[in-house]
C-alpha cells in the first residue's frame, strides 16, 4: 500500500473493495442493520468481481462448444418457434402475433425462473468461496442475477429476429392475441418502458437471491420446493396462453380471474412483455410489482441482518 493512503479498515464481512474507505473500526457484535447495509453496499461496489464471475459462469457452461453462449439463443429460438407454431394452431390464433407474444413471455420467464431457482442456490453453490475468501455475501447474489441478465441479453437476439419478422403485425394497432380477443394498441414509444421494467425485475432478482439464498442454505428442502412450484407456476402464468382466453371463457368479473391476478409472476411478466410486443399495459401491474419489491427487499434486509453472519456456518 503506497504511503499517504489512509489506513484500511476491514471487518469480517468486508475485506474487498474498501481500499479507499477509512471507516471506523467495527466491533463484531453479530446482528446489526449497519452491517447488513454494509454488506449490500460493498457487494454492489464490487461490481467488477460479480461482473467477472457472472460472465465466467456463462463462458464456463459453454466451454469448448463451437458456438458457445449462442446456444442460449439457439435453444430459446427453437423452443419459441416450435411452441409458437404449435400453440397458435391449437388455439387458432394468428401465428404472426402469437409468436412474438410467446417468445417474449418465454424470455421474461427464463429470467424469473433463473432468479428463483439459481437464486435460492446462490450461497450453496458458492460454498467453497464463502468458506475460503472473505467477501460480502451480496457478491454471490449479484453474480447470480448478473448471470441471468447476460442470458437474457442472449435471448434478446431471438426477440430481435422475431421483431424483424413480424414487425408489421405487431406494430399495427388493433391486433388481437386470440380470436375475438381484446384489441392491442400496437408498438409505440411505450417500448422504452421495457427498460425500467427490466431494472425492476433485476432488483427483485437480487432480493430473491439474498432471501431465498439464505433460507435455502439453512433448509435444504427449499430449493426442491421452489423447483416443484415453478413448474406449476409456468403453466398457471399466461405465457403459452393469452389472458384473453380466460376472459372469454369466464366472462369479465368472474372470481376465477384471481388465478392470474394473485399470481405475482404474472405481473412481473406483464410489465416487461407488454411494452415489447405493444400489447395493452395496465398500471396495476406496476403497483403490484412495486409493493412486492418493497416487501421483498425489507424481508431480504431483515434476513441479512439476522442471518448474514450465519451463512458461512451453514454452507
Amino acid at each position, binding site marked *: 500500500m503506497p504511503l499517504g493512503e489512509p489506513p*484500511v479498515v476491514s471487518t469480517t464481512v468486508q475485506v*474487498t473493495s*474498501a481500499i479507499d474507505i477509512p471507516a471506523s473500526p467495527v466491533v463484531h457484535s453479530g446482528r446489526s442493520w449497519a452491517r447488513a447495509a454494509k454488506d449490500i453496499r460493498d457487494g454492489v461496489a464490487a461490481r*467488477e*468481481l460479480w461482473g*467477472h464471475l457472472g460472465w465466467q459462469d456463462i463462458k464456463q457452461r459453454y466451454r469448448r462448444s463451437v458456438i458457445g453462449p449462442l446456444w442460449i439463443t439457439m435453444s430459446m429460438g427453437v423452443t419459441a418457434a416450435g411452441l409458437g407454431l404449435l400453440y397458435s394452431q391449437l388455439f387458432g390464433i394468428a401465428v404472426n402475433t402469437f409468436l412474438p407474444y410467446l417468445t417474449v413471455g418465454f424470455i421474461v420467464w427464463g429470467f424469473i425462473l433463473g432468479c428463483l431457482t439459481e437464486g435460492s442456490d446462490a450461497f450453496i453453490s458458492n460454498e467453497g468461496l464463502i468458506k*475460503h475468501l*472473505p467477501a460480502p455475501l451480496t457478491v454471490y447474489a449479484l453474480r447470480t442475477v448478473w448471470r441471468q441478465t447476460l442470458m437474457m441479453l442472449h435471448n434478446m437476439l431471438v426477440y430481435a429476429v422475431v421483431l424483424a419478422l413480424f414487425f408489421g403485425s405487431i406494430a399495427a394497432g388493433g391486433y388481437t392475441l386470440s380470436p375475438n380477443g381484446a384489441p392491442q394498441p400496437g408498438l409505440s414509444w411505450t417500448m422504452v418502458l421495457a427498460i425500467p421494467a427490466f431494472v425492476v425485475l433485476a432488483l427483485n432478482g437480487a432480493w430473491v437471491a439474498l432471501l431465498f439464498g439464505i433460507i435455502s442454505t439453512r433448509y435444504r428442502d427449499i430449493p426442491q420446493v421452489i423447483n416443484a412450484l415453478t413448474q406449476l407456476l409456468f403453466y398457471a402464468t399466461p405465457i403459452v396462453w393469452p389472458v384473453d382466453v380466460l376472459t372469454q371463457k369466464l366472462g369479465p368479473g368472474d372470481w376465477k380471474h384471481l388465478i392470474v391476478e394473485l399470481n405475482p409472476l404474472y405481473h412481473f411478466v406483464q410489465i416487461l412483455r407488454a411494452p415489447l410486443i405493444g400489447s395493452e399495459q395496465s398500471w396495476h401491474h406496476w403497483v403490484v410489482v412495486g409493493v412486492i419489491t418493497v416487501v421483498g427487499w425489507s424481508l431480504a434486509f431483515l434476513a441479512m441482518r439476522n442471518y448474514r453472519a450465519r451463512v458461512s456456518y451453514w454452507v
Partner: protein
Amino acid sequence: MVSIDVHNASVDFPIFDAKTRSLKKAVLGKVGGKIGTEARVPIIEALHDITLSLRDGDRVALVGHNGAGKSTLLRLLSGIYEPTRGTSEIKGKIAPVFDLAVGMDPEISGMENIFIRGLFLGMTRKQMQERVEDISHFTELGDYLHLPLRTYSTGMRVRLALGVVTSIDPEILLLDEGIGAVDAAFMAKARDRLVDLVRRSGMLVFASHSDELLFELCNTAIWMDEGRIKMHGDLREVLTAYKGRDPLEQMSPETLERLGETR
C-alpha cells in the same frame, strides 16, 4: 494501523444431518413439542474463549495437532466466520491463502484465475493488470499461465496463489499449511518475498508443521489445543513446549546459520 483484537470469541458449528437440516423437522418439532434433546442441533465447539490481540509487525506461528482449531482460527481472523459469542475486530487489508483449490477455477487459465483472485482480494482489474507481469515473473510459470488451471501441478498452484497474494501488498497475511508443496528453489524465493512482505506490511499468521519455515517467518507462536489457546509466546519456547524438545536441536548448522539462531 493494522490490528486484530479478539475477545472471548467462540465459534460453534451447528451440525445438521439430512434430517435436521429440513423444514419438516423445524415445523413438526414445534408442533409436536419437545422431544428430549432431539430437537436441538448438535454443536461442535471449534473455538472456545479465544482472546487474542495482534499488532503491526506480529508474525505468529500457529501450531497444534490436526483438528486443534488452527484453520478455524485463521478463518475467524480473516472474518469469514464471525464469532458466535464474543467479539472480533479486524483492521487491515486481509489476504488469506487457505485451500489452494478453492477460489481457483480449474477450467480457466492461470491468468484469468489471477484476475479473479485479485478481484476477491479487493483489487480492480486495472490494478491487477499492472501486477500481472510481476506475478508471472515471480511464479516462473511463463506460458503455462495461458493454459487451464487443471493442467497445473499442486506446486504450480501454490506458486500462483502465493504470487497473487504477495503481489497485492496485504496488511494481514493469513497462510494455512499446504504451501509446502513447492520445490526447494522456489521455496527460497517465496521465503524471501514473504519475509520482505512481512517486514513491509503488518502482520502474518502462519499455520504450519514445518519448524524451519516457522523460524524463518515468525517470531511468536500460538499453540492451539482442542479449540483453545494453550500457549502464546516466544516461538522457540512455544515450539519446545509443544514438541517436548527444542526444535533447533534437529536443524543442520547451515540452517541455523541462515536463520540467525543459536542453540
